[in-house]
């Protein structure tokens, strides 16, 4: 990229913002255009299921700040409709076309749809955006009935905690054995006890048999034969990459956008991908492309994608983070590092510290309100899973590099 060039960033979430910031930090002096489908500047999305749905913060309090002058042209409230990689053009509504020299894809994910859910009913919502949080607040204000959340992952648990902090009754419905079960039985047990202690109701190993909707009431008949009358139902059953607009672009969008280790979209010379959408092989672990749906990964991958784009495909270096994530439930800090999803087994490393093991090797750690232990174990994971040398070693030097790496593993 050089003076007079134009970089287009599609996606105005945290990844879009941090990519823009890094491009300017690195001295990119050309035109920068940021396209976002929401009519808002980038904001702190983790607050949607907490402060914003509780009403303890205003949306404007959650605006994210850039640490350098972005000098960008913002096209908010605008949804990219198509990408033509051959012509290097992003299509916008109203047959508008925006050419680019470099493109950053950062469109993130959208909440997964639950088949059979009455999505047209204003009392049935998802929690992804500021507008979603405001809609849930309107539904709660219209009725004193309990709130129901379908899905017992991080968003579902955070929402349940938010409801109890508002003094609202809430029922969590999920087909897993326990909430957050993917973080191991010990953490799941702690979460269950915490939620129950704050009198959130749990309907685990169950799903919805019937939706019952009248003007006055809204109810759910569960497979455990429970009937829940609700003020609102929040669907929090995961998300899918927002890549519909990339159909026909030639990019592989089978699960997010398939990327090279450097976050360049597979086979493209001028397209990089950042955030939840990127499916790339993290060479610190193996060569399998995966997506990582965590906020800190959006920050770090955006910076790496910007670096790759400016370096060019041939000179770009692999993005090899040790992923980290966090959540808070009431006053408990839940933290993760590594890739727990890869594990075949869990071990108890210490009090409230779960280790995730693959083929005898530690690949992830999860802590329950132990921030100091998390720092120690993150450092330990970095030691055990070192990032490979950043530049691919030439053939004649490969043997030494390989040996050094094996010795430290």
């Amino acid at each position: 990229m050089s003076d007079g060039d134009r970089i287009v960033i599609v996606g105005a979430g945290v990844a879009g913002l941090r990519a823009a910031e890094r491009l300017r930090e690195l001295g990119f002096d050309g035109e920068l255009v940021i396209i976002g489908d929401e009519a808002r500047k980038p904001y702190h999305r983790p607050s949607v299921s907490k402060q914003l749905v509780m009403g303890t913060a205003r949306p404007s309090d959650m605006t994210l700040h850039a640490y350098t002058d972005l000098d960008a042209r913002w096209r908010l409230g605008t949804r990219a409709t198509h990408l033509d990689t051959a012509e290097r053009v992003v299509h916008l509504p109203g047959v508008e076309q925006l050419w680019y020299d470099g493109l950053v894809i950062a469109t993130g994910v959208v909440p997964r749809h639950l088949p059979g859910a009455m999505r047209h009913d204003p009392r049935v919502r998802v929690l992804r955006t500021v507008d979603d949080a405001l809609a849930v607040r309107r539904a709660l204000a219209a009725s004193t009935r309990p709130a129901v959340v379908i899905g017992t992952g991080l968003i579902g648990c955070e929402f349940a905690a938010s409801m109890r902090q508002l003094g609202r009754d809430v029922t969590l419905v999920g087909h897993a054995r326990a909430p957050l079960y993917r973080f191991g039985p010990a953490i799941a047990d702690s979460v269950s006890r915490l939620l129950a202690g704050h009198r959130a109701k749990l309907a685990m190993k169950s799903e919805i048999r019937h939706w019952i909707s009248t003007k006055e009431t809204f109810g759910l008949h569960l497979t455990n034969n429970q009937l829940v009358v609700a003020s609102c139902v929040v669907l929090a059953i995961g998300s899918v990459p927002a890549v519909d607009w990339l159909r026909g672009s030639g990019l592989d969008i089978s699960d997010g956008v398939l990327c090279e280790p450097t976050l360049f979209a597979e086979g493209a010379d001028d397209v990089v991908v950042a955030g939840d959408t990127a499916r790339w092989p993290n060479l610190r672990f193996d060569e399998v492309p995966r997506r990582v749906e965590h906020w800190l990964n959006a920050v770090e991958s955006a910076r790496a994608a910007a670096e790759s784009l400016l370096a060019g495909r041939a000179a770009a270096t692999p993005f090899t983070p040790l992923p980290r994530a966090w959540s808070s439930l009431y006053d408990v800090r839940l933290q993760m590092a590594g890739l727990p999803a890869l594990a075949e087994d869990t071990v108890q490393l210490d009090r409230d510290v779960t280790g995730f093991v693959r083929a005898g090797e530690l690949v992830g750690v999860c802590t329950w309100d132990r921030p100091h232990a998390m720092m120690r174990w993150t450092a330990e994971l970095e030691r055990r899973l070192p990032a490979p040398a950043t530049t691919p070693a030439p053939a004649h030097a490969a043997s030494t590099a390989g040996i050094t790496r094996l010795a430290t593993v």
Partner: protein
Amino acid sequence: MSRLRRKSRTRARLSVDNERCELFGICEWEAPALFELGRDGRLRYRRQPAAGELTQAAAAARCCPMQAIELRGGDDE
């Protein structure tokens, strides 16, 4: 490039909003020279990072889970 070469006019200042901070310790991981989550669970930090520590300071502010860190000055603002 001009924005990068411009000389700093103001001394950078860090501050942490105690109402927001939930003490995850991510800032210490990003900027160990500036932040320390004490054994007593309290966060200690240096309010005036040196010029050479601004990269770390910005990384901590960017990565803070609660967006509780404010970094002012130290650039061309």
